[in-house]
């Protein structure tokens, strides 16, 4: 069953699916035009509980509008799979790519996988369904909005036979069936809630074991490598390692190659599975590094990066892996991460210690026009609106 509600930049996904369903290519399948994203995820919950394989897609504001339902689906142990076209969260309204949307829901109990390119996005979906149905944990496959969702590139789409060999028919663990009536969604009080949460967490953590196994099985079937928890790139002898999730990895790897050719000891780590957090895998990959710079496409206002604190905690577990971690926030709201900026970052980082928390390519001119650093910066109100107002009143010849 596919419920759908459109939001940029996911619209073509739900449009294409509606055509596929109408042409009967996914039969037996029902497609429902939901009245909102909250409705869409609620439809998923009902359909999944009734025993159907269920899928939807959303982004940004839509993901947040269904936030309550996300936690509900996870708490009910329903194996829903959802594509999230990563897009910034407003205000200010912004339809372009960053990862603040899915990362804001990292505690919801959903497995989160991040695709580096469209081949990975394609391959991660059958893996997602398999994981979800085995573990009774919903899975979101995240792909950078516009950058990946609107890219045309060469990929190999597996045949139906291959997918069927990998993903068996859905056998629901619990189901609404008049022949075997059960109540799903009871109220659980203080005496058992902790244990319910503990058990669900345990199920999610099993993905750390299962995902590499499933990826290997999938890789054998399709004849090419498949994504799993995290992967290293040119880590041999790399003293400075850059860690990232999503589409920036392609550009980053080009820059790493150039830097290596210049003799810099740098490498990269691609993080694919963010939830559950693959602490052990990352400890292994980063064992030889001196510093890790985490490129983050989101951050936690008033605090720090989102991936970095989790990485630091993972590395600090005894025996501690002595790697210095810092955060570079880049690509917010769709700002392209350029090779030029990355080259500078790589060169600077290889030469000296990176700042703990910084923003890539901050536009100082724009900041100063907004009054940054001056007393007038203390004025309350929306930063964006104030900045826009100032832009229109500056005294400059036209």
């Amino acid at each position, binding site marked *: *069953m596919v*419920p759908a509600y459109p939001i940029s930049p996911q619209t073509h996904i739900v449009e294409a699916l509606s055509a596929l369903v109408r042409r009967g290519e996914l039969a*037996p*399948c*029902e497609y*429902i*035009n*939901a*009245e*909102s994203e*909250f*409705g*869409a995820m*609620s*439809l*998923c*919950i*009902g*359909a*999944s*509980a*009734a*025993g*159907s394989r*269920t899928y939807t897609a959303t982004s940004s504001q839509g993901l947040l509008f269904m936030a*309550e*339902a996300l936690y*509900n689906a996870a708490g*009910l142990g329903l194996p829903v799979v959802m594509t999230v076209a990563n897009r910034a969260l407003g205000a200010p309204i912004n339809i372009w790519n960053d990862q603040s949307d899915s990362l804001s829901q990292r505690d919801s109990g959903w497995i989160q996988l991040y695709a580096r390119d469209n081949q990975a996005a394609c391959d991660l979906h059958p893996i997602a369904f398999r994981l979800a149905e085995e573990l009774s944990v919903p899975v979101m496959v995240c792909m950078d909005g516009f950058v990946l969702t609107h890219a045309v590139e060469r990929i190999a789409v597996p045949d139906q036979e291959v997918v069927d060999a990998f993903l068996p028919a859905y056998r629901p663990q619990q189901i*609404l*069936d*008049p022949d*075997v*009536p*059960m*109540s*799903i*969604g*009871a*109220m*659980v*009080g203080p005496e*058992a809630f902790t244990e319910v949460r503990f058990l669900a967490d345990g199920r999610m953590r099993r993905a750390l074991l299962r995902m590499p196994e499933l990826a290997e099985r999938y890789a054998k079937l399709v004849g090419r490598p498949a994504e799993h928890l995290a992967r290293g790139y040119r880590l041999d002898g790399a003293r400075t390692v850059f860690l990232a999730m999503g589409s920036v990895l392609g550009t980053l790897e080009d820059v790493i190659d150039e830097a290596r050719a210049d003799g810099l000891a740098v490498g990269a780590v691609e993080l694919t599975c963010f939830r559950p957090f693959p602490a052990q895998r990352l400890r292994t990959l980063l064992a030889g590094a001196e510093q890790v710079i985490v490129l983050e496409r989101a951050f936690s206002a008033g605090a720090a990066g989102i991936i970095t604190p989790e990485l630091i905690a993972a590395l600090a577990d005894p025996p501690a892996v002595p790697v210095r971690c810092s955060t570079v926030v880049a690509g917010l709201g769709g700002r392209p991460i350029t090779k030029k900026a990355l080259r500078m970052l790589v060169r600077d980082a290889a030469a000296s210690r990176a700042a703990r928390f910084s923003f890539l390519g901050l536009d100082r001119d724009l900041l100063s026009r907004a009054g940054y650093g001056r007393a007038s910066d203390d004025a309350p109100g929306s930063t964006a609106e104030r900045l826009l107002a100032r832009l229109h009143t500056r005294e400059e010849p036209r």
Partner: protein
Amino acid sequence: MNVKFYQVGSLAVGNRLLPQEERAAQADPKRANSLISGHRACQGCGEVLGARYVLDTAMRATGGKLVAVNATGCLEVVSTPFPESAWRVPWLHSLFGNAPAVASGVAAALKAQGRSDIRVLGQAGDGGTVDIGLGALSGMFERDDDVLFVCYDNQAYMNTGVQRSGATPPAARTATTPVVAGQPGNRFGQGKDVPAIAIAHRIPYVATATVADLRDLEAKVERAMQFTGARYLHVLVPCPPGWGSASSQTIRLARLATESGLFPLFEAEYGELTSATPIRHRVPVDEYLRPQTRYAHLFAHEEKGGRPDLIARIQEQADRNIRTYGLLAATMPDLAQHSERSHE
């Protein structure tokens, strides 16, 4: 002796004299008992009574092939305190505001599986239907999803402590429409008429009912189950603690609500009114309001003079309903007249 029988037209008095197949579902010892004893509802709770009536009838109508989806609220909370459940039907509770959407999802899945013989019933209180659930409800209606949605209307958010909802009637006292500083409870001129909204969606079947007339309620559930597509049933269910009424008066109060004209009983199909139940013994609204302490401030109380003006306005509302639905007349009113006058 002059014995007045209520529900004379429904033959409830003569249930035992009827052939088996004409009796109420509740009269059948082999009824589904979809909601069994052991739940934690208050004494005299109208909602669990209504739910049992509705579900047992739906189970009878579907030969036991029914799935129920429940919103958060009193009904859900009292019936499923982990690890117990009072439900003997397959039952799913998700969130407060999404029961119609979840029910639609269940129906879609069953259709995709080729099991549309299993019917879906969604249920919620007035909170989960009229306010937070309205978006999802409207979506279910406009898509004509194959769900019977039942609203058990006790006219406030009872489970969380009697706060005002979009179904709270004018002048009623609730925790968020207190009688203070000269404010007489809930404001006049607000509120939603969800049966009218359902009719405006032109769905196959819409009906109102109460727990006072079991046979009428059962007949409406049966009628609803004869249709496929979106159907809506709005059931008035008094709440003793919320209304401030005695727990023994639940059924009587529901009857007074219809007999006063404040809660008209009617059916509609595809946007057209098809029936309205005449009032057998009309009562002034006072008789209905007086036994409920949520209206106590309207009546003279010690030195306080009460609010006869507001009672008069409530009476006007009842009179309007009686005119609109032809509850004392032999003729059927037309829908346009109804929609013009159905706002306060």
